C-alpha cells in the first residue's frame, strides 16, 4: 500500500538525516562557543546525565560553575568583597549572580559595611533561603538580604535546575520546600558537595544512584527520558524530541496558573519569605528581601510584593530601579522575549 511505503521511506529518510547530522555535522564539539546552531541544538537535547557528565569532564574549559552552589561548600565560597573591618556592620546577600551584582554596587556606594556574597548559579529562592538558615551563627550578618529571582521560581518544584533549565543545567542540589497543613516541610539534598557528585559521575555507582534517585523522586521536571543517557541519544531526532518533551513537561507541572500566577508556587514562596523575616528577627538581624525581576514577570512580582507589604517585610524591587523591557509569563520562562498573541 502506498501510504505504508511512503511511511517507510519517511522513516528511512529520518534515519539518513540522523546519520548526516551525526557524521556530517557532528555532535561532540566541546566548547559551546564553537558549536554551530545545529550542534548546539543537538547538544542541548542530550539527557541531563550526559550533559552533567560532560560538564564535569570538561569543567575547567566548558563549565567552571558546575562546582558552584553546593550546600556544604557555599559558605566557603561566600566571599567578603574586601577585608573585613571589625566593628563595621555587615550585610550578606543570599542569592545568585544578580544579587552579587547588587551587592558589589552596594559595596561601591557604601564603604561603611562588610559586604558578603553567598550565591548559587541562577539559584532559586529555596537555595537562598536554605543558605540563610544553615549559615553558622558566628558568620551571620547584621543585615541579611534574601534575593528572589522571579524566573527561578519554578525551582520551588525542583531539587536541581537541570529539569526546568534543561538546555544549560547546573548540578548542585537545593532543598525542596512545601507547605502542608500550614507546616513548612523540607526535603534536603543528599549530595551536598561537588566532590561527592563528581565521584558519582566518575564511577561511584552508589553516589550516582543516590543523586539520580533523588532527582527522579523529588524533582517535578525530571523523569527517566529527561535524565538517563541511552543508546538512543545517538539520534538527533531523539534529542529534538526530548527538548519538546521537556517543554511539554514544564507546562504540565506548572498547571496551577490563574491570572498569570501559579498560586501553589506563590504560597511556598510567600511562606519562605515570612520564615526568613521571622528567623532573621529572632537572630536580631534586620532582614531585607530583594525581588529580581529581570525579564518582566510582573504578575509574580505583584503577588510577592503584596505579601511582603502585608507582612511588613522590608523589600526592594529591581523593577523600580530598572524596569524590565518586556512582560512575560512564568509559564514560558525558556522564552527570552515573546508575546503569545497579538493585541
Amino acid at each position: 500500500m502506498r501510504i505504508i511505503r511512503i511511511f517507510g521511506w519517511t522513516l528511512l529518510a529520518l534515519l539518513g538525516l540522523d546519520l548526516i547530522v551525526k557524521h556530517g555535522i557532528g555532535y561532540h564539539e566541546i566548547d559551546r562557543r564553537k558549536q554551530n546552531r545545529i550542534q548546539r541544538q543537538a547538544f542541548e537535547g542530550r539527557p541531563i546525565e550526559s550533559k552533567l557528565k560532560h560538564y564535569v569532564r570538561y569543567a575547567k574549559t566548558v563549565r567552571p560553575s558546575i562546582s558552584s552552589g553546593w550546600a556544604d561548600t557555599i559558605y566557603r565560597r561566600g566571599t567578603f568583597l574586601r577585608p573585613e573591618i571589625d566593628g563595621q556592620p555587615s550585610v550578606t546577600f543570599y542569592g545568585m549572580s544578580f544579587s552579587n551584582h547588587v551587592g558589589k554596587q552596594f559595596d561601591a556606594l557604601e564603604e561603611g559595611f562588610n559586604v558578603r556574597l553567598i550565591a548559587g548559579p541562577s539559584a532559586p529562592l529555596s537555595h537562598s533561603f536554605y543558605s540563610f538558615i544553615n549559615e553558622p551563627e558566628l558568620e551571620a550578618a547584621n543585615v541579611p538580604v534574601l534575593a528572589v529571582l522571579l524566573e527561578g521560581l519554578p525551582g520551588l518544584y525542583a531539587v536541581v535546575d537541570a529539569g526546568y533549565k534543561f538546555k544549560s543545567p547546573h548540578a548542585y542540589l537545593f532543598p525542596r520546600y512545601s507547605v502542608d497543613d500550614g507546616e513548612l516541610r523540607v526535603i534536603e539534598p543528599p549530595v551536598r558537595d561537588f566532590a561527592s557528585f563528581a565521584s558519582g559521575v566518575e564511577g561511584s555507582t552508589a553516589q550516582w544512584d543516590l543523586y539520580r534517585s533523588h532527582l527522579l523522586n523529588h524533582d517535578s521536571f525530571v523523569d527517566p527520558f529527561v535524565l538517563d543517557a541511552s543508546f538512543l541519544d545517538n539520534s538527533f531526532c531523539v534529542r529534538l524530541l526530548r527538548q519538546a518533551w521537556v517543554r511539554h513537561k514544564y507546562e504540565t507541572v506548572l498547571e496551577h496558573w490563574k491570572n498569570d500566577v501559579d498560586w501553589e508556587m506563590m504560597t511556598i514562596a510567600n511562606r519562605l519569605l515570612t520564615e526568613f523575616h521571622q528567623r532573621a528577627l529572632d537572630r536580631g538581624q534586620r532582614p531585607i528581601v530583594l525581588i529580581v525581576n529581570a525579564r518582566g514577570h510582573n504578575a509574580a512580582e505583584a503577588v510577592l510584593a503584596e505579601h511582603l507589604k502585608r507582612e511588613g517585610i522590608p523589600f526592594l524591587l529591581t523593577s523600580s530601579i530598572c524596569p524590565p523591557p518586556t512582560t512575560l509569563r512564568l509559564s514560558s520562562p525558556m522564552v527570552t522575549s515573546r508575546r503569545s498573541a497579538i493585541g
Partner: protein
Amino acid sequence: MLFNSLDFALFIAILLPLYYVCRHRQQNRLLLVASYIFYGSWDWRFLSLILLSTVIDYTVGRAIQRSDSAARRKSLVAVSIFSNLSLLGVFKYFNFFADSFAVILGSIGFEADWTTLNIVLPVGISFYTFQTMSYAIDVYRRDLDAVDDFFDFALYVAFFPQLVAGPIERAKQFMPQITQPRSPSLDAFSRGLFLILFGLFKKVAIADGLAYTVDPVFESPEQFARVDLLLATYCFAFQIYCDFSGYTDIARGVAKLMGFNLSLNFNLPYVSQNPQEFWRRWHISLSTWLRDYLYIPLGGSRGSLVRTNINLSITMFLGGLWHGAAWNFVVWGVYQGAILAIHRLVVGRRAAVSHGLLRIVWIGLFFQVICYGWLLFRANSLASIVTMTRILLFGPMGTELLLPTPELSVLIGLPLLLMMDWLQYLKGTSHWYRKWPEPLQGILFALMIVVLLMGMGKAPAQFIYFQF
C-alpha cells in the same frame, strides 16, 4: 486545547478509533460531543454561548422555512442577525466601545465615571456567529432549506476542527457532508495526514519561531532602526501567514481524516499582484462571507464608482473591526478598503498582469503594500503605528542588526516552505508532491518532521486568530 498540543493529539487518538467503528448517525453524535468537549476545554462557560447561538438560529431557520409572509421572514432573520451581533457586541466589543467613548468624553471635558466589565472574549466567537448568521440568511433567501435535525445543526455550528478559527463554512456546502454518510478513503486519510504535518510545520516551526524575532521589535519599536523594523515586518508577514494557514491546514487535515472536506482558506496569498487578488487568496472564507452578506447587499459594484468604493470601504472597515476590538484593526481595515478603492480607481476591472518578469515585479511591489498593512495590524497601539511609520520613512538605517536572530527551525523551515509554495504555484495544485517518486516524498516529509521537532522545543504560542 491547542492543535499543537499533546492534549489534542491524545484527543484525536481516542476520538478517531471510536469514530471509525460508529455508524453515520452515531458518528455525528460522537462528533458533537467531542466538539463540545474540545470547546469546553477552554472554558466550559463558553458552551452556553454556542448553545444559545445554535438554538436561536435553528429555531429561526425552522420558523423562516415555515413562513410564507415576507415581513415575518424578514423579522425572523433580523432576530438571528440581532442576536448574533449582540453576542459579538457584548463579548467582543463592549469594553472597546466603552473605553473609546470614555476617552472621547474625556477629551471634551466630561469625566466618564464607569467601570468596564471584566468580559473574557470567548474563543472563536467571531467565527461561529458569522457561520450561524449566514445559515439564517441563506434560509431567508431560500438558497437553503432549514435543517430538520437539531443535533445535525448543532454539529454544523460546533464542528471542532474549524470551530475556533475557521474556515467559516457555509451550511450549503457543509450540511450535506453531515447529513450524508461519509466514507473516508485511504487516499483522503493520507492527504489529511500531510495537511496536518504541513500545518504543524508552518505553525510550530515557522510561525512560533518567528515570534521570537518579531515580538521585541513591535514591543519597543523606538529602540530599533529602519532595517530592523523592515525585517520584523517581513517576518511578521510570514508569521501570520504560517500561523493562520497552518491552523487551517491542520483543521482541514483533521476533518479529512473523518471524511469531511473543509473549504480552502488560503491560496498562496503573497503571490498576489493587487488587493483584489490578495483577498481572493487570503482568508477566503471571510472575504467571500463579507462579499456575499455585506458588500453585495450594500449594493456591491452595481452603482457608481464612488458608491462602489464607499461599499468597499464600509466592508473592509467592518472586516477590520471583525479582527479585533482595537483601533489598529480598524485602521488596518480602512487601509485595506483604501487600497482596494485606489486599485479600482487606477486599474479598473482590467485583469492582472500574467506574464513573466513584470508579474514578479508586481508581486514584489504589492508585497510591500501588504506588509505595511501587517505593520498596522500588528502594532500595539496607534502611537506605535506613528512611531514605526516615522522610523520607516525617516529613521536611521542602523549600522548593525539589533533584532533577534531567527530560530534554527525558521532558518531551515522558511526556505523549505517557500520552495514548497513555489512548487504549488508552478504546478497549480496543492497536491504537487504526490507526483514525486515515493523516496523523494519520504525525504520531504522527514525534513518537515525534523524541522517541526526543532520548533517543538520552544514554548508554543496560541494561534493568533484564536483571539478573533
